[in-house]
């Protein structure tokens, strides 16, 4: 059975997290689940990397966090996007589209 690569592309985890949180505040597992759902299982998130990314993004000032009760009444740390996080998302989105477009053009030219 051919191995399907589910690793997150280097450097895109931040973008995925920011994008996911732009819709609504979520806790860690929620974010991981949402990413897997939306991408149709293309990306599988490593919990360690995700928690490290939270710390990094929070320290950059792009995320806020808050301990809150979940729907099934457990305590969880919810992350939400800050104003500067939203700006960052725009920048990263634009950047990503530019690069992805460039790669696509390159691949099509060869094919």
């Amino acid at each position, binding site marked *: 059975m051919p191995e399907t690569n589910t690793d997150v592309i280097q450097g895109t985890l931040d973008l995925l997290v920011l994008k996911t949180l732009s819709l609504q505040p979520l806790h860690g597992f929620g974010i991981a689940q949402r990413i897997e759902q939306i991408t149709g299982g293309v990306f599988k998130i490593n*919990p360690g990397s995700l928690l490290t990314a939270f710390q990094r993004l929070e320290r950059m000032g792009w995320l806020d966090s808050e301990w809150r009760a979940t729907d099934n009444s457990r305590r969880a740390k919810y992350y939400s996007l800050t104003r500067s996080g939203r700006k960052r998302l725009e920048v990263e989105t634009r950047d990503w589209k530019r690069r992805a477009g460039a790669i696509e053009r390159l691949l099509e030219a060869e094919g």
Partner: protein
Amino acid sequence: MSLWRQLRHGVRTLLWRSRADGELDEEARHFAEEAAAAHEARGMGKEEARRMARLEMGSALQIREEVREAGWESGLTGFLDDLRYGARRLVRSPGFTAAGIITLALGIGATSALFAVVYTVLLRPLPYPHAERVVALVHTAPGANLKRLRMSPSLYFTYREESRVFDAVALWNGRRATVTGVGEAEQVPTLFVSHEFLDVLGVAPALGRGFRSGDDDGQSPRTAILSDGYWRQRFGGSPGVLGRRLVVESQPHEVIGVLPAGFDFLGEKAALLVPFRFRREQIRLIQFSEDGIARLKPGVTVKEANADVARCLLLAPRKFPMNAGFAANAFSDARISPTVRSLKDEAVGDVGGTLWLLMAGVGVLLAIACANVSNLALVRVEARRREFAVRAALGAGWGRMARDVMTECAVLGFMGGAAGLGLCAGVIRWLGPGSLFEPLPRAAEIGLDAWVVAFAMLLSMLCAMGVGLVPLWRASKDWTTEAVRGGGERMSASRERRTTQRGLLVMQLGLATVLLIASGLLLRTLAALRSVDAGFTAPQEVQAARVSIPVALVGSTEMVMRQQEAILRKFEALPGTTAAAIATSLPLEGANYDPVYVEGRDYGHDRLPPVRRMRRVSPGYMQALGGRLLAGRDLTWQDVYGFAPVALVSESMAREVWGEPVNGLGKRVRASLGEPWREVIGVVGDVRDDELTAAAPAMVYWPLGHRDAAGNASATRHVDYLVRSKRAGSVGYVKEMREALRSVNEHVPLANVRTLEEVRAKAMSTRALALVLLGVAGIMGLLLGVVGVYGVVAYSAGQRRREIAIRMAVGCTPRAVVQMFMREGLMAAAVGGALGLAAGIGAARAMRTLLFGVGTVDVGTLVVAWCVVAGAAGLASWAPASRAARTDPARALRG
């Protein structure tokens, strides 16, 4: 601010590490639970779902490590862990740790304490706003043979009116003034100032007002400002003091202000500020008896100020008339030129060189201490060679192990620094008033402030690095897998290590030699100074004290002189007194200057004759000093009261002018063109007057009373009494003198009580200070060197125990064994001593200005220093060597 957030989060993680960890764990657990729940929802069994989630997550510990490593603070916690590990290892070997800490504490403490002195005296700005703009108005007059010329009122007005570089100019003079009416009559240190004085310094009174331009014009009511200390002491700190009358020099003065508490001016400790009272129209060109300060306009350099003052100096003769009886060209002939410099430079004077030299001395001591500790650390690294080699073989990086060695030294450096700072604080407290440092300017300000603490911390960091580098360098050579093999290569490695140890030992002993040479030279200097013939004998038997009789108290010239003689007679009558006299000042405490015309010499029309040192004296002055009368006779009281035109001259003056002392008798001299010629009635021995190290200047002595060119008689109101007695310096004698004085005039206090010996000691104080400090540094350096020699030889003997046992078993005598080990110490002493001699000659050159009566290459000192170091090293190596020689071969080889 993301940087700020980074910092805040990092610090929070550092401070509440367990809380941060707990939060992280909880977040991870929640993640796992949710994941398990998700699996369960997809139809998995409960246990299976949980196992699956755990598998996906990996270990909680690993996640924690992963997240934690991402933050900047992880580097710091790693360092702290290293420190903790290093400290724990040090605790396990208390001997090494204690030796290291004590040695470093000595070095760091001594260096920091001296830094506190250097910083306070040389580096810290004076306590005024923009103190760098405050300058001292000093001049030089090569034409009048004066290296240093002070300020005159004429120049004060000239600079005030003509200068373009000063915001304000002020004249000042620190004297003692008699205050009566507040308790007992007393002489208090007083600053006589022109009204801008406080403006120049930028200081405002804490209470009341400062002086205004009217206060010093000689017509408005007299005013005074009190120092904070005097105000508290005499008026209990009451604000009601403003407007009160204070009798200064028998004149009522209105108190108009009180200075702020911390006010200090060149350490003058003035209790009072009293304005001069100028009558501009009465001022003559030459009267250089005051001092001047000024505040530069912003942006003006000292060089520009000097240029502008030089321009003003040309204008002065046109603004003020020449003194009566003076040569018309006296001012221009004196070739006055400005040497304006910052007030701080003026305050510090020439002690800068000495202090930096002492700083270098304790720096050398610190280097010895570091070499010593480095040697100890080397032995420790040696003991851990196997451990390092194994770790290297297992893949530990060089950096990791270097950190290990360095953190141990860092802990040692830190502890040594902390202990050193404590030592430094103790030394500084001990430096308080009355100590060795008192003769230094600003000595009272020396304290343990933030800069000293910062310096000590920096120093301990540098020491830690310095101490660690050598063992690190040695150890890094061994960090090859080769070392694991053990056994075989030990000999060569330990030989290399011994070379390094010996290198450090040579350095210690060499540096100790330098310190010993420097202190030896100073010891010889002081001995030479002590045996200098200053022109007076048994100065410890001369009691001196100042007595001032204000105009308002005794008006007539005649009465002043009568009272002065009456006081003198009372002193003479005290039991034990053998001689007594009056003079305007004491030798080595500064004299006055007069131009001296010699009859029959042609000085050219209106030219200035050579300016000579001058002192007014009573009959018996030379006798009280213990000096000699070479020819002729002494003054008499008839000469004094009769204003007889007579003079005494010094031997060097007589030799210079007339060839032989005897030839001077009967010749005539005078100080100005208007006065009658004075006959030289006696030639007296030379007395050193500038410094003990400088040859005695040519000098003239006029009688106490004198008439000016216009024939007005005047007395000298401020005089020193010199009373010779075996009882000089005792409390009882001074008390009797006070009573004797009170019996003549109860309103006149006895001030500035000291013996001539104290005056002489003060002239040697800088060198004495240097000697004591360098001497202490030298002895400590030598002790550390001895400890170093002992340690290295003892260690070496311990390592080679088996070898010695074998040697002795095959017939080597104990004597040969002792020789073998002593050679080690003595060789280090010989090589180190030789290097030290070379460096010592260099050091002597650097301290040339401090030396007197001894050359920079003083063979005696060099030989003694070398012998002391060699002898100490010999003794230090003899003890462990003889112990090694007592090795019992049978036991050593079996054990």
